[in-house]
């Protein structure tokens, strides 16, 4: 801004040039950062599935896959798909379902809602047709229903909190190994 205020032509040209140079750079960096965050979060979702135990009734057959529903940008869905490809947890495959609308949540085992206002949460949760669904959110607003696991950014590191009360109510078992890694765990009173 200081550069523009001086209104000197060469300065302006230089500033423009700088902008021209800078803008794509910034965009690339931003893109990279988002991609990295997606990578980490996608990997976390996969790892959450490892340390959470669903009741048997959640699966129609013994070999039925664990379905992760993502209400997110398509890019994230692709990243997640990439990560869970050919992976198995407890003999089950992992399926990714990219949700175009909260209503599509349907029959998933885990649902992740990227960012999004609290209103979406309500819709998603309402759309869930079964009880034992692990909900993962990006942020928790006070008073909002929020997720059982909520990502928290600690500097450039991705951490998470666990609400054991909600998970317990849903009939999910969250491993100690996972609880250990959370920055905070809300337990049943």
């Amino acid at each position, binding site marked *: 801004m200081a550069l523009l205020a001086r209104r000197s032509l060469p300065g302006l040209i230089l500033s423009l040039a700088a902008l021209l140079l800078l803008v794509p750079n910034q965009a690339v960096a931003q893109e990279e950062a988002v991609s990295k965050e997606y990578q980490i979060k996608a990997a*976390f979702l996969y790892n959450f599935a490892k340390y959470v135990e669903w009741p048997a009734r959640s699966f129609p057959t013994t070999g039925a896959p664990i379905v992760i529903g993502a209400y997110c940008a398509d890019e994230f869905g692709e990243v997640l798909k990439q990560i869970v490809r050919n992976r198995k947890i*407890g003999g089950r495959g992992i399926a990714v379902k990219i949700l175009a609308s909260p209503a599509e949540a349907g029959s998933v085992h885990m649902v992740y809602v990227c960012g999004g206002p609290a209103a979406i949460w309500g819709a998603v949760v309402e759309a869930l047709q079964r009880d034992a669904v692990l909900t993962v959110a990006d942020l928790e607003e006070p008073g909002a229903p929020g997720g059982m696991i909520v990502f928290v950014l600690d500097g450039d590191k991705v951490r998470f909190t666990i609400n054991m009360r909600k998970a317990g109510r849903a009939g999910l078992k969250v491993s100690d*190994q996972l609880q*250990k*890694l959370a920055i905070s765990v809300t337990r049943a009173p």
Partner: protein
Amino acid sequence: MRRLRDTPIKRKLTTISMMTIGAALLLACGALLVFDYTEFKEILVDDLRTTAQVIGDNSSSALAFNYPDSATLTLRSLAAKPRILGAAIYDRGGKVFSVYSAGAADGAAFAPPPVEPDGSRFGANSLDVFQSITVDGETVGAVFIRSSLDAMRERMVQYSLISVIVMLLASAVAAALATRLQRDIVGPISHLAGVAGAVARDKDYSLRATKRGMDELGLLVDGFNDMLSEIQSRDGALQEARANLETRNLELERAMRAQNMFLANMSHELRTPLNAIIGFTGTLLMKLPGAINALQEEQLTVVKTSARHLLSLINDLLDLSKIESGKVDLAAESISCQELTEDTVESLRPIAELKHLALTLRLPEKQLRVTADRRALRQILLNLCNNAIKFTDSGSVTVELRELIQEHQVEFSVTDTGIGIQPEYRGKLFQAFSQMDSTDREGTGLGLHLSRRLAELMGGTIDFASEPGKGSRFWLILPLE
């Protein structure tokens, strides 16, 4: 060990039992020690593996979520195990993910080694374990733990100490037991040895060993006692026999003395009247009391000859009894052989001339001397010459003295041309009372026997050679001076 055979049985038994027990204990303790060492190592490895497994399980989420801090927290729980020197967690790619070092506070940093496949390895004083971390069958990383072996070493030292104490205690108990049990073996043997020693020392065969049991030692005691009984009875019999023999011997000696005394007395008693008979017969024959007629003279001559014969018989008997009883005392004087031979032969010349026999004497020029009893030597020569004259009716009697230079001896020989001696008499000639053909010859039958005994007493020999009807040659050989 070298001198074990010379040590007393008690010591021997103690040594044997102690060595046996010691060897057995040493072997047992050694085997236990080795077994325990091996097992303890296994336990140590198992224990460390389990720990590694637990650490791995507890770190899997940290690896999954890439939270090294959480893994470090998990590793720090190892501080509860002071044996563990250090530990590390590696990620999927083998890169060190988290490190724990027990000595970190001391500044001794622990450098984790490059990741290796699962397994354990014993170092100089440490045990290393690698254990992979798997989740759902997928290897997500590895754990490394290094444990100190101080505990094992301490345990081995303790074990050795306990072994030594156990061995000492066991040896003491064994020694005490062995000493007690040995009494049953050593006691009877010592007793037996003592009795045997006493028997040997005191020659008291009435002693007996006491038997304490029916074992081999009991049998030994029985055998020993039986032997003693046998010896005792034999000893008794022997003593009795000896006493009998001694009594008999004394009786015999007494009888002998009495016999000799009797013989001496009798000879004296016999000689006294004979001397009177010979003396007075001589007086009568010399016609000193008065004239006698021819018949009387002839009869008196017979009396005188008979009396002479009786006297010589008595003299010979006396000599013989002296020799037999060992009472003859021979002198050892230096005698000239020529002189003695000449004297003897000359004294017999009248008798030889009476029978018209040629009595020849041959003497060497060299003087020959012997150490002998003069009377005995003369008696032998007289006997030989008398015999020659007696048994020769015509011809000659030659007496010769000869030196046997090589043997350093002297030979007196008497050769006659008499009747000779039949071969069957050869063996009997020198026996007492064995005169041959005594019907018409004067003689006691004791002469040659006496001569031989005397010659033997002086270290000489007498022998003869003869041809019946042609003559005989008798010789006496004596050692020269």
